[in-house]
């Protein structure tokens, strides 16, 4: 594959590039990069006027469901959705069956990733923090790290015991990998299925209070101060107070990072009216004031990462009573469009800041080498059209599942395609 990307707006927060340039890509590398490069024979030209080239995007929070739940998603369909959404790398959570809590499962997941779509999307396993994600005994972090794990988490379940969390942070600190916490105080959830507030009151649905998330973050930050060598990453934060806790901890120099999902910065709990189970996720959609605080946290850098929490469930699993439905929605194919529509076109973030949160920061947090857009570097790229207007059609999803609340939503901006390992895959 030889490509000549002409007149592309190249944005690379790592090298500080922000200019209109041509890139010639051959043998999986950026052969040349510069303004107005001459066209050479054998290169297919893609006119990138008005379009963007960035380091390949990474989604550090994805549920691929394989092994164990292949009726919801497989690594192949998950990778196809990732490629269509503009991601060249995805980190997959260990809540599979068996869980990714030993070397064999970690290696299996990566092997399946290399087979999916010829391995154009890098599949990076997150190891379980505790054996079987049961919150009781430490998972073998060294073995998992050696087998390619890029962090540790019991996601879906919090690491509830303070004692176990302390030991998880201590043990993981030896390997310079993050502990990713699904922050939720389990005793306060009690069958809750949406945000506890005026909407849950009217709908008569049991609520999950904000404080359930905030208490767990506060506890973990106190532990982190006690174990400062550790690295702590909070998954999918959803409340104003969570943003504030992390902002203050960062100001104190603690090793804490966090992520937000596109649905938490786009939708409010009012979306639950009508009982559409595609609005049921954990943490739940929050009221407007939290959404605004999340945007503020994105803007001032408190929130490092945008990650999808892509969580496929089949139609039959979701088309049930609201209280009985499983938590989670898919997100790989709508993330970039929602981020551009809700954050960039509304001037919450610059394009460069957005790329930081979708590429540079997730790689830094998971100790991946940075992608540099420069001559001779491997071509790991995402091509973006920031202005294309499109309507989300769940029926054309590459994922095996269609559980998205965004069907029919009009978005501005999306992926054109990705380049990785010498391959070009066009989105759509």
């Amino acid at each position, binding site marked *: 594959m030889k490509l000549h990307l002409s007149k592309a707006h190249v944005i690379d927060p790592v090298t500080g590039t922000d200019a209109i340039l041509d890139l010639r890509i051959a043998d999986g590398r950026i052969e040349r990069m510069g303004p107005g490069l001459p066209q050479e024979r054998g290169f297919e030209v893609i006119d990138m006027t008005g379009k963007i080239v960035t380091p390949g995007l990474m989604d550090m929070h994805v549920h691929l469901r394989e092994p164990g739940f292949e009726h919801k998603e497989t690594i192949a369909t998950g990778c196809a959705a990732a490629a269509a959404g503009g991601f060249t790398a995805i980190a997959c959570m260990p809540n599979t069956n068996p869980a990714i809590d030993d070397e064999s499962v970690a290696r299996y997941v990566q092997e399946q990733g290399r087979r999916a779509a010829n391995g154009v999307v890098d599949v990076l396993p997150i190891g379980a923090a505790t054996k079987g994600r049961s919150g009781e005994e430490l998972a073998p972090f060294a073995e998992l790290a050696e087998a390619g794990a890029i962090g540790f988490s019991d996601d879906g379940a919090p690491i509830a015991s303070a004692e176990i969390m302390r030991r998880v942070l201590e043990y993981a600190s030896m390997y310079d990998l993050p502990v990713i916490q699904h922050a939720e105080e389990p005793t306060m959830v009690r069958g809750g299925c949406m945000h506890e507030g*005026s909407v849950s009151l009217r709908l008569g649905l049991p609520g999950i209070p904000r404080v359930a998330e905030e208490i767990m973050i506060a506890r973990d930050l106190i532990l982190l101060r006690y174990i400062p060598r550790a690295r702590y990453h909070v998954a999918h934060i959803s409340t104003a107070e969570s943003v504030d806790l992390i902002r203050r901890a960062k100001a104190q120099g603690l090793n804490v990072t966090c992520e937000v999902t596109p649905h938490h910065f786009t939708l409010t709990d009012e979306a639950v009216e*009508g009982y559409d189970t595609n609005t049921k996720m954990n943490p739940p959609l929050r009221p407007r004031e939290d959404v605004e605080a999340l945007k503020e946290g994105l803007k001032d850098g408190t929130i490092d990462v945008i990650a999808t929490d892509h969580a496929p469930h089949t139609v*039959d699993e979701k088309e049930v009573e609201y209280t009985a439905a499983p938590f989670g929605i898919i997100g790989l194919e709508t993330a970039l469009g929602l981020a551009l529509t809700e954050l960039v076109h509304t001037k919450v973030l610059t394009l460069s800041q957005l790329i930081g949160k979708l590429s540079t920061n997730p790689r830094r947090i998971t100790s991946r080498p940075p992608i540099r857009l420069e001559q001779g570097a491997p071509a790991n790229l995402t091509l973006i059209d920031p202005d294309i207007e499109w309507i989300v059609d769940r029926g054309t999803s590459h994922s095996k599942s269609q559980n998205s609340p965004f069907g029919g939503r009009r978005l501005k901006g999306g992926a054109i395609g990705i380049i990785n390992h010498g391959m070009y895959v066009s989105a759509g």
Partner: protein
Amino acid sequence: MALQSRHLLGLEGVSAEDITLILDTARSFREVLDRPIKKVPPLQGKTIVNLFFESSTRTRISFELAERRLSADVVNFAASGSSVSKGETLKDTARNIEAMRIDMVVIRHASSGAPHFLSRVVKANVINAGDGQHEHPTQALLDMMTLREKYGALKGLRVCIVGDILHSRVARSNIYGLKTMGAEVSVCGPATLIPRHMEELGVRVYHRLEDIIPRVDVLNVLRIQLERQKSGLFPSLREYHRYFGVTKERVEKAPQPITIMHPGPINRDVELSADLADGEHSVILEQVTNGVAIRMAILYLLGTAQSSERS
């Protein structure tokens, strides 16, 4: 005259005109109930299924009586011993109903929003007979009918709902309906059993019966369930009775007469003292009679509007 919706899913958003139409219609059916021959023909040839996924005796019997008195064909479906206990989903149950050409569905379900879900997947009219902690619209309508019969109008009437508001669908439906009709509504109960943001529904919140009793015309007393004690929401039935029990002593301190309501079944001498339940100001049995009339009115208004639509 016809209702604005072809389902009765809740009272939130239902207009004062529609509520008045239902109450007026129920009044004429109430007269039918006092006749020696209590059957009228408007739903002849219609098939109604009572889908009770949660156990209920009085609501189901009340609906069934209403259906039979309107000459409908009635099928009862209870969750225990049915395909539901064999793992059938609500969606499959709904599809089966559809395949059997049922005209109207009355549903009671432990999950809030289940009637809404059903209304999206079947063509039949759906009537909510209580969904989770959400709404119980026919109960609130029969409560309003009882009060309107007694006071002539609902506007300005001062009603306090006492007890476990958090888990109560009766409370929510009463609040929506009474507020729409211009009544003044308050709630009283332990802080752990009153949801946050309650004031946003336009009601005042009290935690002491002594504070509210002097200011109301009506106390609607809710059943307290022992299981809430086990989940840490109140200390004991003894303590509940002592501080939140509606008793003759408490009520008699008020200068004005206070009407006593209860949706049943009553825990006598727990949330409500037996002497009040059976006393001269109790309208609890009136509520039961009016329940049949209200359900006849709903079934009639929805069932007959549908056939004229189709013709």
